[in-house]
C-alpha cells in the first residue's frame, strides 16, 4: 500500500446529495474526511453570465445531436451536463434508456427542482400492503427522525395534511392563498376523493450540497475535497476482503493514482456507484465488490413521468380577460390509488404536479397563419397543466451490467442498461390521464390536449435500486444501515440502496438515509467495530 499522504478516517466518493451529507455529518463530528469527485470545482460567478437566446450559436435550439438522452439540457446550460460521447453506455436498440448525468462538485443537486417529499410505509412496507416485491428493512418510524432534521437544513416549505401516504414534515408552513382556478381544481379533486396539497420544496434558488452542506463541512477543517478524481476501482485486502483503498484517475490528464482508505462511503449516484462496484472485482469478490448475493445491478427502477398529461384551459381567463387572482400557482396531488381499494389493472399509485397561468405549446394549436395567432393569444396565460409521476415496480430483470466492449474516455468499462416498463406502468398512466381529465372538467376547465405517453426509463432522473438494502444477505447488497453485507467498511449511501421508491422525488430520502448511516458509522467506529 502506498504511503499515507492524507490522514483521513473516511474516504467519500461523490460530492452530491449523498456524498455531501456524509461529509457534513462526519466532518462536523470531528471525523477526518477526504472526498473525491470526478467533476471539476466550478466558480459559479466566472462560469456563468446572462445572455440573450438570440446571442447563442443555435438560437436556443441546442447543437443538433449533442444530447441524445438529456431532454432537460438547454443551449443555456449545455456545458453543465456530461459530454455523452466521453461517457458512453449501451442499452438494447428497442429499449432506450435516458441516463442524465452531471459531474461537478455538488452533483446533480446543482440543477435539481428541489421537490422534497417523504416516503411513507406504503413504500417502506409495500410488500405487506399488496404482496409484490420486497419490504425495506426499515420503516417510516426508523427514518422519520432524520427527515425531521434534514427538512429544516434544506428549508423545505409545504403544508402538512395529516394523511398517511404523505407523512407530515418539519416544514416552513406555506400559508399562501391559492388562486381561484387552483381552488376550483382542488374542490373538483376533493369530490372524487383525491387529496391535494401545496408543493413541498427546498427554498432558495440553489439549495444544494454545494451551498448547504459542503461549506459547513469544510469550515470544520476536517474535510478535503479533491475535484477531477475519477475513481475507477475500490481495492480490497486479499486476506480480510475489506476495502483498503481506491484507484483514481485525473480527469484532465488521465494520470493514475491510488490512495488507501479505512472506511469508504460511496455516493457517486445510483448507477455510477453500482458500476464502480461491478468494476471492483477481485478473487475474494469475483462478481464485483459486495456481490456475493448476485443481486448487485438488479432491481433497477425509477418513476414514470407523463409530461403535461392534461393541458386544459380556464374559460374565464381567455382573451387575456382573467380577473385578478384567477390564474397562477399550482400544487400537488397525493397518491390516492390502491390505498384502501384495489385497482384491477395496476398495483401502487401515482401523483401529479399541477400548475396554471401559462400558454400553449405551438404544436397544441391546430392552425396556422392569422388563425394560429388568434387561438394562441386567446388562451395564452389561461392554461392549466398536470404532469403525472408514478411508481415503477422493482423487478429483478431490470438491471445493469458491465459491457465488456465499451469503455469511457478514461478506459473505465461502461454500463449496459436494460430497463423496460410493463403493463403495470402503462395502465397506471392511462388511469392518470382519465382521472386528470375528469378533475379538470369537474373544475369547469376545457381540455386542450391529453395523453398517456410515458417518457423513456431514466428520463425522470430518479433512477433507483441496483444495490438494494435488505435483511437477507442472499437477496440484498446492503444492510439496513447502508453498509455492505460482505464488506463492513463500505457504505453505499445514494439512491442505489432503495428497495421501492413510490412516486415521490427521492432526494430527501437519500439525504436522510445518509444522515442515518453516517451516525451509525460513527457509533460503530467508537465501539471499535470498524
Amino acid at each position, binding site marked *: 500500500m502506498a504511503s499515507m499522504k492524507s490522514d483521513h478516517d473516511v474516504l467519500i466518493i461523490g460530492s452530491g446529495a449523498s456524498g455531501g451529507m456524509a461529509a457534513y455529518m462526519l466532518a462536523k463530528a470531528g471525523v477526518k474526511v477526504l472526498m473525491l469527485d470526478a467533476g*471539476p470545482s*466550478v466558480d459559479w460567478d*466566472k*462560469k*456563468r*453570465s*446572462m*445572455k*440573450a*437566446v*438570440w*446571442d*447563442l450559436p*443555435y*438560437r*436556443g*435550439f441546442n*447543437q*443538433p*445531436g449533442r444530447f441524445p438522452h438529456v431532454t432537460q439540457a*438547454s443551449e*443555456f*446550460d*449545455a*456545458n*453543465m451536463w456530461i459530454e455523452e460521447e466521453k461517457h458512453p453506455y449501451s442499452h438494447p436498440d428497442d429499449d432506450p434508456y435516458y441516463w442524465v448525468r452531471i459531474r*461537478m462538485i455538488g452533483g446533480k443537486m446543482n440543477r435539481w427542482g428541489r421537490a422534497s417529499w417523504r416516503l411513507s410505509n406504503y413504500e417502506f412496507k409495500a410488500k405487506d400492503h399488496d404482496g409484490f416485491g420486497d419490504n425495506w428493512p426499515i420503516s417510516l418510524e426508523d427514518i422519520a427522525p432524520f427527515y425531521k432534521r434534514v427538512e429544516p437544513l434544506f428549508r423545505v416549505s409545504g403544508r402538512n395534511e395529516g394523511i398517511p401516504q404523505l407523512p407530515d414534515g418539519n416544514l416552513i408552513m406555506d400559508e399562501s392563498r391559492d388562486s381561484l382556478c387552483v381552488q376550483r381544481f382542488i374542490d373538483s379533486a376533493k369530490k372524487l376523493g383525491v387529496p391535494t396539497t401545496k408543493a413541498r420544496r427546498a427554498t432558495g434558488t440553489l439549495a444544494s450540497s454545494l451551498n448547504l452542506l459542503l461549506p459547513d463541512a469544510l469550515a470544520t477543517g476536517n474535510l478535503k475535497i479533491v475535484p477531477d478524481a475519477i475513481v475507477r476501482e475500490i481495492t480490497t485486502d486479499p486476506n480480510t476482503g475489506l476495502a483498503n483503498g481506491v484507484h483514481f484517475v485525473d480527469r*484532465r490528464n488521465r494520470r493514475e493514482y491510488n490512495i488507501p482508505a479505512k472506511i469508504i462511503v460511496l455516493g457517486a449516484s445510483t448507477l455510477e456507484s453500482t458500476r464502480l462496484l461491478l468494476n471492483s472485482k477481485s478473487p475474494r469478490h469475483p462478481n464485483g465488490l459486495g456481490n456475493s448475493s448476485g443481486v448487485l445491478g438488479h432491481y433497477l427502477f425509477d418513476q414514470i413521468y407523463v409530461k403535461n398529461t392534461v393541458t386544459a384551459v380556464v374559460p374565464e381567463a381567455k382573451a387575456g380577460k382573467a380577473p385578478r387572482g384567477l390564474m397562477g400557482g399550482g400544487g400537488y396531488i397525493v397518491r390516492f390509488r390502491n390505498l384502501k381499494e384495489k385497482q384491477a389493472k395496476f398495483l401502487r399509485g401515482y401523483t401529479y404536479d399541477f400548475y396554471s397561468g401559462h400558454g400553449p405549446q*405551438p*404544436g*397544441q*394549436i*391546430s*392552425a*396556422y*397563419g*392569422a388563425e*394560429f*395567432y388568434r387561438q394562441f393569444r386567446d388562451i395564452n396565460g389561461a392554461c392549466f397543466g398536470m404532469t403525472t409521476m408514478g411508481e415503477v415496480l422493482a423487478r429483478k430483470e431490470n438491471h445493469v451490467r458491465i459491457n465488456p466492449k465499451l469503455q469511457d474516455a478514461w478506459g473505465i468499462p461502461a454500463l449496459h442498461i436494460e430497463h423496460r416498463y410493463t403493463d403495470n406502468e402503462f395502465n397506471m398512466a392511462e388511469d392518470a390521464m382519465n382521472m386528470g381529465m375528469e378533475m379538470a372538467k369537474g373544475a369547469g376547465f376545457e381540455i386542450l*390536449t391529453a*395523453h398517456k*405517453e410515458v417518457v423513456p426509463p431514466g428520463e425522470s432522473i430518479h433512477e433507483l435500486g441496483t444495490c438494494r438494502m435488505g435483511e437477507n444477505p442472499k437477496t440484498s447488497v446492503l444492510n439496513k444501515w447502508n453498509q455492505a453485507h460482505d464488506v463492513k467498511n463500505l457504505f453505499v449511501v445514494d439512491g442505489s440502496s432503495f428497495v421501492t421508491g413510490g412516486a415521490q422525488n427521492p432526494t430527501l430520502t437519500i439525504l436522510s438515509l445518509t444522515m442515518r448511516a453516517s451516525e451509525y458509522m460513527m457509533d460503530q467506529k467508537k465501539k471499535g467495530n470498524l
Partner: protein
Amino acid sequence: MSERIPRRRWIKTVSTSIPVAAAAAAQQTVIQAQSPPPVPPAERPNLEVTVLDTVGDPILHFFSKDQFATLRRLADILLPADGAMPGAVATEAPEFLDFYLAQSAADRQTRYKAGLDRLSGAGFANLDAARSASLLSPLLTAWTYHPPTDEYARFLREVKEDLFRAMVNSRQFAETQGGRRGGAGMNTYWHVLD
C-alpha cells in the same frame, strides 16, 4: 430580402453584462473606497463589438434554391408578420433553419427536403389561398403526442414548430418585446467549464 425590418446597430459589451457606464462608475467607487493601485483603464477595456449576423447575410448551404424559396413562402404563410411583431421571414427563421438542418439528423434532413419538394412540385409559390390551404390541411388535424406517421404531415408539424421557435428566439423578435427580461429570452448561460 425586402421584408426585412430595418436593422439596428446591435451592440454588446465584452466580458460583462453590466452596461459600460455603470461598470465604470462601479470601478470608481471601488477606487475611492480602497487605496491604490487603481487599474489603468487600458488594461481592461470593454470594447464595443457588433453581433455578426447584423452585418453579414447568411450564406445558404443546405436547401436548393427552389427548396429555400418554398420554405420562405411557407414561413410567410404559417407565421406572417402581425402588427409590430415581425413574422418568421423578417426574423430570418428560414435562413436559420438552412443552417440548423445542415447539421441535423439524416432522417430529419430527408423529411424536410422531401416535404419542400412536394410543396414546390405542386406549385406552392403561386397557388391561391384555397389551393395552398388544401396542401397545408394536415396542420389542422388535432394534436397527438407522437408525431404523425405520414412523413409529409410530420414535416409540416416540424417546420411549423421550428419556424415558431426560430422566430420567437430571434433578435428581431426580442426587439419588439420592449426589452422585457423573459420576452427578450435572457437567461443564465453556462460557459465551457474547463
